[in-house]
């Protein structure tokens, strides 16, 4: 996260990579998998991220927040890869994206959804939760993963996602509304009471 470049020697680089980066390799792989939803792509994304992290290790300040730094690289790697694979690789207008999120009809969040109770949610199976999460828009899914699964704070998410803290909070709020709606619809369709 530090903008200053530090000149580590090869031994120091290896030590940082093994002692600070490898600690987060499982979390990175899980994040990669939840983004790509594909085992092979997740492995490739993980390896590319590690290569890039090592290449740019001089911009990492030893002993700081390695996990957030690595997640930021991984997320950017994913976006670049995703854009390359899509037929529309032009730069994303983030204001347009946020306007879209703020629009009234996003994933039906303003529509009436069936009632949902905490007890019902607790009865749901892992697959049901995973399916609901995986069916969400990627940006919404990402904020839920970063906060609820990985435990990142708003300021860390802001750095990982390159968006202001206020936007993190509003996006997270909308993501939760969408997830709740999906779980409610699912619960109703499965006859949960």
């Amino acid at each position, binding site marked *: 996260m530090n903008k200053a470049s530090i000149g580590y020697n090869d031994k120091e680089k*290896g030590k940082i*990579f*093994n002692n600070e980066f*490898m600690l987060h*390799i*499982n979390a990175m*792989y*899980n994040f990669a*998998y*939840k983004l790509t939803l594909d085992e092979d792509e997740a*492995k490739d994304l*993980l*390896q590319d991220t*590690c*290569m890039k992290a*090592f290449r740019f290790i001089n911009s990492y300040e030893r002993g700081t927040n390695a996990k957030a730094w690595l997640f930021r690289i991984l997320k950017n790697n994913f976006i670049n890869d995703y854009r390359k694979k899509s037929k529309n690789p032009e730069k994303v207008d983030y204001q347009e994206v946020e306007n879209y999120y703020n629009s009234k009809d996003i994933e039906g969040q303003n529509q009436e959804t069936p009632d*949902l*109770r*905490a*007890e019902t*949610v*607790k009865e*749901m*199976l*892992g697959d049901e*939760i*995973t399916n609901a*999460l995986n069916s969400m828009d990627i940006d919404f899914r990402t904020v*839920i993963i970063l*906060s*609820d*699964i990985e435990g990142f*704070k*708003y300021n860390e998410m802001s750095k990982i996602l390159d968006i202001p803290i206020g936007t993190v909070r509003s996006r997270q709020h909308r993501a*939760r509304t969408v*997830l*709740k709606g999906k*779980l409610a619809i699912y619960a109703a369709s499965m006859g949960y009471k």
Partner: protein
Amino acid sequence: MLDEQATEEDSIFVTKHIEVCYRCYDNYDLEKAIREVVKSNTNKIKVSDQIRRKITSKLGL
């Protein structure tokens, strides 16, 4: 408060409020349950030794 990022003052306010407001308590309870199931029901996959070795070998470590 559920994200553990509220100030102490805000947390006290919310805690006191949900003690007396059933509607807000219900909502709080649901939000809490969703966070818990998302966290506990998400599979955590471990990276195999083979991939670890592949990465460190590519980097010459």
